[in-house]
């Protein structure tokens, strides 16, 4: 391998990282669906999927085969190119943003004169803005799918989704400013490092006094991903299935996967911004080289996965508990409550930082 130039080494290792992360994310998406069905089932006093494989563990595979083999219907009145492109936009945007998420502590492997970070596909200095930008492009998938289906339910669903996402994007972006002010950087690595000094106590949620920002982020993120209690775009009691009413087979599956991939991204961002990312909650209680070099590298990844998993469980818990908002309540909640609160949080955080920082 020594005849490769540093650039070729970088390219090769990056491709390997991308493939690994891609496969893991898609598997996680499939099993989040199963987790949701299982947990919701138990909440509603039934078993959930239990037939395919032990404890229903092979259910995602069966679902995938079923969706893949179904007939792919194309409505006569649909706007063909946009109808086909819309689910691709939705899924691509949902999956791409995972590329800037650091999964573990910075751990470089050196080969051919170049160091490559093992647990991060790309560490860029505006990682947070990249995630926000990609999420804001993802709206086109939903907007175009509803319009191109030429169906009134789809159109209403996508109109609702578009206005909801635009409204809550502001509160979402503003809620993260407090954290950025504290870390003085938009790089996700630096933000994580800024809260890993004393374990749990230095996380932005506890030690950084950003819990208000966290709750704003959480609510805005639920609205951004069109999940309960903000799932008006696909309210089945009013709109059949909302923007993906006319979609079938793999095109429907792409929207479905995009929704769950977005959930995972949002959980990753919440973990990184407010709960110390891959840093351990125990801080220095554990010695730095606990359990040898391999365990030292793997432990942060486990912490990260555990935190993201907790957020996913919270998502499902909220869906099983809360009823849906009414549309005007949704808008006034976003504009009249979350947005002013986020602004107040920014002002107070920057005042405190200016006086004490």
């Amino acid at each position, binding site marked *: 391998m020594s005849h490769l130039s540093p650039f070729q080494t970088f390219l090769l290792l990056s491709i390997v990282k991308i493939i690994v992360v891609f496969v893991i994310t898609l598997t996680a998406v499939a099993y989040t669906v199963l987790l949701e069905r299982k947990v919701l089932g138990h909440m509603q006093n039934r078993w959930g999927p239990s037939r395919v494989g032990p404890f229903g563990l092979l259910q995602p595979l069966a679902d995938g085969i079923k969706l893949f083999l179904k007939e792919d219907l194309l409505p006569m009145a649909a706007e063909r190119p*946009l109808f086909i492109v819309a689910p691709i936009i939705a899924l691509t945007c949902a999956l791409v943003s995972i590329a800037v998420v650091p999964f573990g502590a910075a751990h470089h492997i050196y080969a051919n004169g170049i160091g490559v970070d093992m647990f991060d596909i790309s560490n860029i200095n505006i990682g947070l803005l990249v995630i926000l*930008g990609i999420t*804001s492009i993802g709206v086109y998938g939903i*907007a175009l799918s509803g*319009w191109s289906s030429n169906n009134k339910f789809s*159109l209403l669903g996508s109109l609702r989704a*578009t206005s909801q996402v*635009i409204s809550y994007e502001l509160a979402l972006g503003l809620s993260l400013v407090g954290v950025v002010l504290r870390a003085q950087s938009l790089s996700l690595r630096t933000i994580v490092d800024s809260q890993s000094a004393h374990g749990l106590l230095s996380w932005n949620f506890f030690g950084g006094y950003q819990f208000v920002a966290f709750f704003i982020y959480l609510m805005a993120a639920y609205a951004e991903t069109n999940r309960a209690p903000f799932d008006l775009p696909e309210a089945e009691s009013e709109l059949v299935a909302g923007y993906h009413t006319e979609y079938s087979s793999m095109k429907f599956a792409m929207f479905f996967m995009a929704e769950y991939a977005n959930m995972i991204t949002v959980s990753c961002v919440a973990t990184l911004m407010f709960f110390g990312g891959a840093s351990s909650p125990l801080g220095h209680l554990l010695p730095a080289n606990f359990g040898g070099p391999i365990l030292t590298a793997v432990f942060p990844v486990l912490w990260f996965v555990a935190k993201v998993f907790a957020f996913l469980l919270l998502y499902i818990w909220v869906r099983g508990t809360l009823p849906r908002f009414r549309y005007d309540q949704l808008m006034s909640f976003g504009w009249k409550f979350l947005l002013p609160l986020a602004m107040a949080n920014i002002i107070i955080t920057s005042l405190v930082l200016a006086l004490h920082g």
Partner: protein
Amino acid sequence: MQLALFIIFGALAVAGALNLLLQRHPINSALSLVVVMMSLAVLYWSLGAEFLAAAQVIVYSGAVMVLFVFVIMLLNAGEEERTSGSRAAYIAGIPGAAAIFCLLSFVFLSEQKALGVANLGGHLDNGLNNIAEISQVLFTKQLLPFEVTSVLILVAILGAVVLARKEEQ
């Protein structure tokens, strides 16, 4: 690398802009404009202005153009009718556009020294973070224009609210 990026995305921006004019359906035109915005963002990035690139994507592609698409969807605007165009546009427009293009390129090329030249790819002064640099300029040298622009936007918001408010009977 930077040159390749410039050629690819410059060409994409021009193609998107032409497609915007040639498409008959407003939604296709709006989507072409999104492509232009995104290509411009990549060009900013290749010049080393990564914050500007991200802001371009978030503000223009992610918010402004989504609103355009939203309005087109809401009004359900149909395909536009093709006319042969006014004769004045053909006689005066094309030579006029060509003349303006020539004039601008002449001015830029002749005033190259006075304007300064930016290198393609990574142009950062004294190793500061790009965002810190932009905010320092905005809040010291350019404070007045910055605040005036904010007030201008505020006035626009107030105007929109006045226009949108229902008449009280």
